[in-house]
């Protein structure tokens, strides 16, 4: 008898727990609240930041909220336009379609299988405004300003007659050695100005160095082979080499296949350089510019081919490979200073000396920062890292 009563109770229990009416009907989620809309900081007035509190129905595991819909209007009564749809659990977004200085009203709606909740309240008016200064970059601005002042005064001094001395950098002396070896062996000197496009400043520095290398090759009668990965770099390299040879009165030594365009894909360009190294077996190589990990394939192939190699890059990922496999390496700032150092032009040399002074200033800033941090004073490092609050 008791067992029968329990069986009846168990059978009835789910029905009693179900909401009244149709058992398949799902309730609409409760509305989200607390929508706050603020102007996005440090932008050109094209975005607004939105934050809200989630719907009480938006609970992990048992949520009946499938997402949130953000709607926008230019008056509190609408008409409303959907500007974003986000999944459940998300409580912030940025409206990047806002127009500058236009007033907007926003509402957020929780949606689910049971439908969308009527929006609780409307937030507004808000407007996206443009700022004049990125306060988080104020430390970078100050650093750049100081460096420009240092560079400018060095150039001005050089124009007034100062003759800065060229500094002996072993890797730069090795470039003359590379040219000599190519001329002596009657085999080419391979120059690769990195495998990135001209928008990387390392490529511009490498092209600057190419001019000096080409000038030396023209003088020594060494065959120069230049291999580039991108079309614009090709056009610039062609121009740089032509000017260098014409400047040395060796326009007759220019040939159409002196500079070759490979492929604007790192792996394809790497394969082409590797193949060239094995087939042409250059006497020496100057591999300077922007490389990634493919630098190892290039420089190690050169080493296997027996080429005397000078490599250079400012990419931290490539430098260990270059240092390991090349005979000499231009490290970081040395790559950018290579062209000026070889040119012996006073103004360009002056900027190199100024860059060295700038590095000393950076080292001083690091030491000051370490000392202040050790003393428990964080103002200086916070300013450098995050700018003004």
């Amino acid at each position, binding site marked *: 008898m008791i067992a029968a009563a329990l069986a009846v109770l168990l059978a009835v229990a789910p029905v009693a727990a179900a909401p009244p009416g149709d058992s398949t009907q799902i309730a609409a989620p409760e509305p989200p609240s607390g929508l706050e809309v603020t102007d996005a900081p*440090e932008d*050109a007035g094209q975005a607004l930041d939105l934050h809200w509190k989630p719907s009480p129905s938006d609970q992990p595991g048992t949520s009946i909220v499938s997402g949130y819909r953000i709607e926008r209007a230019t008056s509190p009564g609408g008409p409303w336009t959907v500007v974003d749809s986000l999944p459940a659990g998300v409580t912030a977004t940025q409206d990047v379609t806002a127009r*500058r200085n236009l007033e907007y009203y926003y509402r957020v709606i929780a949606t689910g299988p049971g439908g969308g909740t009527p929006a609780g309240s409307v937030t507004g008016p808000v407007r996206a405004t*443009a*700022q*004049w*200064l990125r306060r988080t*970059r104020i430390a970078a601005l100050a650093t*750049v300003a100081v*460096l*420009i002042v240092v*560079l400018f005064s060095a150039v001005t001094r050089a*124009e007034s007659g100062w003759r800065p001395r060229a500094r002996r950098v072993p890797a730069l002396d090795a470039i003359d050695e590379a040219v000599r070896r190519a001329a002596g062996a009657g085999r080419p000197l391979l120059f690769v100005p990195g495998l990135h*496009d001209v928008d990387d*400043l390392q490529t*511009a*520095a490498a*092209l*600057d160095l190419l*001019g000096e290398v080409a000038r030396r090759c023209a003088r020594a009668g060494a065959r120069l082979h230049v291999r580039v990965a991108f*079309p*614009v770099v*090709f*056009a*610039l390299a062609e*121009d*740089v080499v032509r*000017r260098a040879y014409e400047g040395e009165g060796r326009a007759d030594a220019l040939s159409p*296949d002196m500079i070759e365009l490979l492929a604007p894909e790192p*792996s*394809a360009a*790497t394969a082409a350089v*590797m*193949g060239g190294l094995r087939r042409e077996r250059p006497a020496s190589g100057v591999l300077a510019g922007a490389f990634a990990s*493919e630098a*190892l*394939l290039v420089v*190690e192939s050169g080493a296997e081919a027996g080429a005397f190699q000078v490599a250079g890059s*400012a990419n*931290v990922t490539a430098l260990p490979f270059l240092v*390991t*496999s090349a005979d000499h390496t231009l*490290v*970081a*700032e*040395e790559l*950018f*200073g290579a*062209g*000026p150092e070889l*040119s*012996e*032009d*006073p*103004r*360009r040399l002056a*900027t190199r000396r100024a860059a060295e002074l*700038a*590095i000393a200033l*950076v080292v001083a800033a690091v030491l000051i920062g370490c000392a202040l941090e050790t003393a428990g004073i964080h103002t200086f490092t916070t300013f450098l890292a995050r700018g003004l609050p």
Partner: protein
Amino acid sequence: MRRDGPLFVTFVAALVSLVAFFVPHALVSGPADALAGTAVVVLACGFVLGGIQLVRVNLDAVVHRREGWPYRLVLVVALVATVAAGFVEGPGFATAGTRSRWIYDTVYAPLAASILALLAFFVVAAAFRALRVRSVATALLAGSAVMVLLGRVPLGAWLTAALPAPLRLPSLAGWILDVPQAAARRALLMSAAVGVIAAGFRILVGIDRPHVGNDDLPPGSEGA
């Protein structure tokens, strides 16, 4: 005089881009965005010119049977076939199921992956070269490398399990990576940043002019 135009354009473009990094206002960011868009167009034109040059140089080498001409023939045929497939497919050439995508998936991607797979073998050769002890510096490099390599695998922990925790290989490897390695890495980055600013300054004020030539600045000249 013919260089004044390009130098002026370079100066204005570089200055606007530099200022836009610090000033987000539309009066500055608008022109900077427009300049960036123009650069994309210029680069796209470069690809057309580059393709023409590629065909010209390599066909010339094939016609004159220069050294390595069969490779150049393969290059020209592959280039023409890929471009032709792209034209046949039209605007959606890169989507799945197209001939262009087939060429990419079955020819280019495996070849590219094979090239990058060679890295493993080259790393061994380079490591062998680096670990040969020739001086105090290379001895330090070799010692650090061995500690990091062993410290990142279970064998290192097992070998030094009896030592105090700070002296075990995983701790030492972590210290090498977090302290001296990170410090050296940051030093290189700061040095490179200074180099970038100096190189940018030279281009901004027209001291370096790789795009129009430096030939009016002969070695040892008076400069300005």
